[in-house]
C-alpha cells in the first residue's frame, strides 16, 4: 500500500528539518570542517602556523611514530586513564552504597558530594598545589608531625610521585560524579523488591549479590567507557598540575599534542598526533562495545 503523505505532513517535515538546521550548520562549520582541515594538515610538514609547508602524505605520521616521546606519552595516557577509571568506579560504587543507606543528613551528602566535579580545573590545580606543596603544604606538615615521613614529599615535582599524584587528583574530581550516577541506579531498585527478599529470608550478602550487582551492571558498563574516554582526553588537569613534567613523566598524549603545536611549533605533527589519538579512541570504543555486549548477552540484561 503506497503511503500517502498529506500536504500538512510534508509541511510538518519541512518545519522539523528547519528546526534542526541551525545546529547542523553550526556543527558542520565548527566541528566537521576543522577536523577535515586537521586531517589535511596532518599530511603536511607545517611547522609554525601560517608558514609555508609541503604536502608530504604520511611522512609526518612516520615521524611521529618514531618519536620516543610518542611511545612514552601513549604509555602515560594508558596508565593515567586505566588507573584513574578503576578507582573512580570502585570509590564511586562504595560511596553510592554508603549513601544509599538511610541516615540523617543523607540529603546533604547526596547534593554536595558532587562538588569536585563542578569546580573548574584551574581552581582544583591551585587547591592541590597548595595542599600538596612540599614547602608550605598542609599534607606534608601533617605527615611530618605524625612522624610518618622524615622529610617533605614533593608530590607534584618529583619524578616518582608526580604521576601517582596527578592520577589521585583525577580520581578525586570524578569519583563523586560516578557515585551520583550509581546511587541513582541503586535508588531505582523498588523497595518492595527488598521487602520480598527479606521475607524470603535473604541475608545481606545474598541481597548484595542478587539485587545490587545486577542494578549496577549497566551503569558501570556505560560509565566506565565514558570515564575512560574523559580521562584519556584530559588535558587541563595535567597541564595545570605539572605541565607534563617533571621530565615528561606526566606528559600524556593530549599534553603532547599541545606541546607539539604551541611549544615546538610543529602543526603538522600535532595534527597527525590528534588523528592518531582519534583512531585509538575509535578502536577502543569498538572493542569496548563488543565486550560489554557480550557480558550483557550472558546475563540476559
Amino acid at each position, binding site marked *: 500500500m503506497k503511503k500517502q503523505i498529506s500536504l500538512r505532513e510534508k509541511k*510538518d517535515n519541512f518545519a*522539523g*528539518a*528547519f528546526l*534542526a538546521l*541551525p*545546529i*547542523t550548520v*553550526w*556543527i*558542520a562549520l*565548527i*566541528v*566537521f570542517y*576543522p577536523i577535515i582541515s*586537521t586531517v589535511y*594538515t596532518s599530511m603536511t610538514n607545517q611547522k609554525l*602556523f*601560517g608558514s609555508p609547508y609541503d604536502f608530504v602524505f604520511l611522512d609526518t605520521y612516520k615521524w611521529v611514530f618514531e618519536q620516543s616521546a610518542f611511545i612514552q606519552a601513549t604509555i602515560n595516557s594508558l596508565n593515567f586513564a586505566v588507573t584513574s577509571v578503576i578507582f573512580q568506579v570502585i570509590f564511586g560504587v562504595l*560511596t553510592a552504597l*554508603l549513601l544509599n*543507606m538511610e*541516615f540523617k543528613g543523607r*540529603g546533604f*551528602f547526596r*547534593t*554536595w*558530594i558532587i*562538588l569536585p566535579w*563542578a*569546580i*573548574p*580545573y*584551574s*581552581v582544583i*590545580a*591551585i*587547591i*592541590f598545589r*597548595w595542599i600538596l606543596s612540599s614547602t*608550605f603544604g598542609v599534607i606534608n*606538615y*601533617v605527615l611530618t608531625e605524625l612522624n610518618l615521613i622524615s622529610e617533605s614529599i614533593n608530590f607534584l615535582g618529583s619524578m616518582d610521585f608526580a604521576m601517582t599524584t596527578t592520577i589521585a587528583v583525577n580520581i*578525586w574530581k570524578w569519583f563523586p560524579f560516578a557515585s*551520583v*550516577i550509581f546511587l*541513582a*541506579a541503586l535508588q*531505582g531498585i523498588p523497595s518492595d523488591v527488598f521487602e520480598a527478599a527479606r521475607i524470603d529470608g535473604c541475608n545481606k550478602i545474598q541481597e548484595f549479590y542478587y539485587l545490587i550487582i545486577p542494578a549496577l551492571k549497566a*551503569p558501570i558498563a556505560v560509565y566506565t567507557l565514558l570515564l575512560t574516554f574523559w580521562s*584519556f*582526553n584530559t*588535558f587541563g588537569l595535567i597541564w*595545570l598540575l605539572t605541565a607534563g613534567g617533571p621530565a615528561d613523566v606526566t606528559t600524556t598524549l*593530549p599534553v603532547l599534542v*599541545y606541546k607539539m603545536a604551541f611549544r615546538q611549533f610543529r*602543526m603538522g605533527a600535532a595534527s597527525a598526533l*590528534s*588523528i592518531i589519538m582519534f583512531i585509538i*579512541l575509535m578502536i577502543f570504543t569498538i572493542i569496548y562495545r563488543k565486550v560489554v555486549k557480550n557480558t550483557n548477552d550472558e546475563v540476559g540484561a
Partner: protein
Amino acid sequence: MKEGIGIKIIRFVGLCILSILIFFPFYWILISSFKPEYELLSATATFFPQNFTLSHYNRILFESNYLNSMKNSLFVAGVTTCISTVLSIITAYSFSDYKYKGQNAVEQSLLITSMFPGVLLMIPLYVLMAKVNMLNSLMSLIIVYVTLYTPFGVFTLITFFKSLPISLKEAAYIDGATKIKVLFRVILPLSVPGIVTIASWMFIQSWSEFVFGMILINNPAKRTVVVALSDWMGEYYLDWGALTAGSVLVILPVIVFFAFMGRGFIKGLTAGAVKG
C-alpha cells in the same frame, strides 16, 4: 530488621572519611584566603586562622584585572547558555515531534560531537579561529562552547519531551494549534525542570572551561577568570593568599547555585543517565 551497631560504625567512619576527602580541600582554601601572609608561609599549619585579613581579597579585586576577567567569564557563560538552551530546545523538539529526512544523520552528528574529545579540536579550532581573525575575541569562545555543550542539552531534552503525555499535545492539536504553538503553550511550561537542568549544566561548564579559553585568547584583558587564575599561578606562584582568594571567588557562584538548585540539578542529571 534493625541495624546492628557494626553497620552504624562502618557508616559513620565511611562518612567521616568521605567528608574529609571531599570537603577538606575547600575548607582549607577558604581559611587560607583569610590568613595573612606570614601565617600562610609559617612552618606550622593552623587549622583555624589565628589572624584574619581581607587584604588578599582587596588586592585581587581592586589591584588587578580579576574583576575584568570575571566580567568576561560572565559574559561568555551567559551568552553561551542562552544560545545553547534555545538551540537545544528547538533541535530536541525537531526530534521528539517531527519526522524528516536526514534526521538520523543529524542525530549521528550530535553524537559524534558529544563524544569527540575536546583535545582533538584544540588544533582545528585554533586554526579556524586564526583564519577568520577571531582569535582573542570572546565570541570565538561562545561559538566553541555552544558547539560543545548543545548536544548534551539536545539529548536530555529529547528524553524529556518524549516523556510528556501525548494526550496533552493531541488536545492542543484538536483545538487547532500549530506545532509551534504547542511547543510554547504545552511543552515548554512542562519542561521547565529539564530546561533548568541543562541551562545550569551549560553555565557551569562554560564558566569552568579552561583549555579553549587558554588557547583561543591570549590578551590578558580578554581572558576568562579561570584562565586568568592559572596565569597567576605561573607568575605569582608564591602569592598563595591571592590565589586562594581568587579561587574562592570563582567557586562562589557554583556553591551558591548548588545551595539553591543542587537537589533538582542532581535529579535532572541522573534522570536520563541511568537508563543509559
